[in-house]
């Protein structure tokens, strides 16, 4: 009786240590998983493939005009305009581009969303169609009183295609994750030349 109690106690002790070790291992694994790998730095003059979209940054500038591509800007404020060539690589028309580009927080308040405009005729955020590159302008309101920067950082977000999601089993683009960062020089104005590859 006593013998069995002792062996059980031992077993429990060892089991406890084992559990602690397992939890520690899981923690280490989790820590590895969460470890921030440095994001790849992308070249501004390149085609950036993020699954749904193919992006090619064209030019960036700061404007103090009242209108930028038909959008009314905050009076007295300045706006950072980034022109990008975007190609929809999916099989369907889509406007899933609102979270694709995130400007660095040094120039833009991260809480403000950019206006996104088709430069061709200043249509506000239209659907873009498969396999047809379009020039789009991302327009961020600059922080009040911010100086015009020489360049700014941009984080590119990509999503992953799942033929069937977990809940309903429908196809779609999920799990936005940063794909890389790039630094874009800020040019003189709307008339500046495009970045050449």
């Amino acid at each position: 009786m006593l013998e069995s109690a002792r062996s059980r106690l031992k077993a429990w002790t060892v089991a406890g240590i084992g559990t602690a070790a397992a939890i520690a291992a899981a923690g280490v694994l989790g820590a590895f998983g969460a470890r921030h790998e440095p994001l790849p730095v992308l070249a501004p003059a390149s085609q950036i493939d993020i699954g749904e979209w193919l992006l090619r940054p064209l030019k960036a500038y700061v404007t103090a005009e009242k209108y930028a591509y038909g959008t009314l800007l905050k009076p007295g404020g300045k706006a950072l305009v980034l022109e990008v060539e975007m190609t929809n690589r999916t099989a369907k028309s889509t406007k899933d581009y609102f979270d694709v580009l995130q400007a660095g927080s040094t120039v833009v308040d991260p809480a403000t969303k950019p206006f996104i405009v088709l430069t061709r005729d200043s249509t506000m955020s239209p659907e873009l169609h498969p396999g047809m590159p379009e020039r789009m302008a991302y327009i961020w309101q600059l922080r009040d009183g911010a100086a015009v920067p020489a360049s700014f950082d941009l984080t590119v977000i990509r999503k992953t295609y799942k033929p069937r999601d977990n809940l309903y089993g429908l196809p779609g683009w999920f799990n936005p994750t940063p794909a890389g960062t790039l630094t874009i020089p800020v040019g003189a104005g709307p008339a500046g030349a495009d970045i050449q590859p």
Partner: protein
Amino acid sequence: MMRKSANIVLLLLAVVFCYGLQISKPHYGDLIGPIPARGKLADTVVGRAFEVHAEKIEFARKLKVDQFGRQKVLTTGGVWAVVTVAFAARAESTVVSVASWRGPTGLTYDQTERLSFMNGLLPVAVDPGLPRKARLIFEVRPDQANNATLLISEKLVAALDSQAEISLGPVTITADGLPGGAVDTLDMAEPL
């Protein structure tokens, strides 16, 4: 040895067969998808809630439109495809709001959102006994013009409701890469 290789062949066949089953099995999206009501250009396609009759297709490089009294010329990265259709409601007043252009390789082009200010585009309210014409305007890649299908439904999610599928037939592509008969500028001010 014979038996072994026969087994391997059998297993391979099973793998191929299972792959076939796996990719051809309809899933949730297919099961609750729209039910097609098929037809050709100039047919009257009868769905559950509405009938549609596609009269003609025109292709153009540019569109001339009237925006709040001002003339405007709209360009596109591909080619404009304008389909003139007539709708009629069946038992109940309804609103037809979604149309898309499916190319021969399955690329699907929704109706353009760049002309939302114009009259005669979707969404269109139709009443029983009162047919109504409308224009469906798409921007498509020229290589998607040939043998395309027009998909028209009342709502975006046409779960198990009818969706008109109109095959638009062959379109020749000329040497400059444009669909045959494409005009340079199409005037949208012309009455339907």
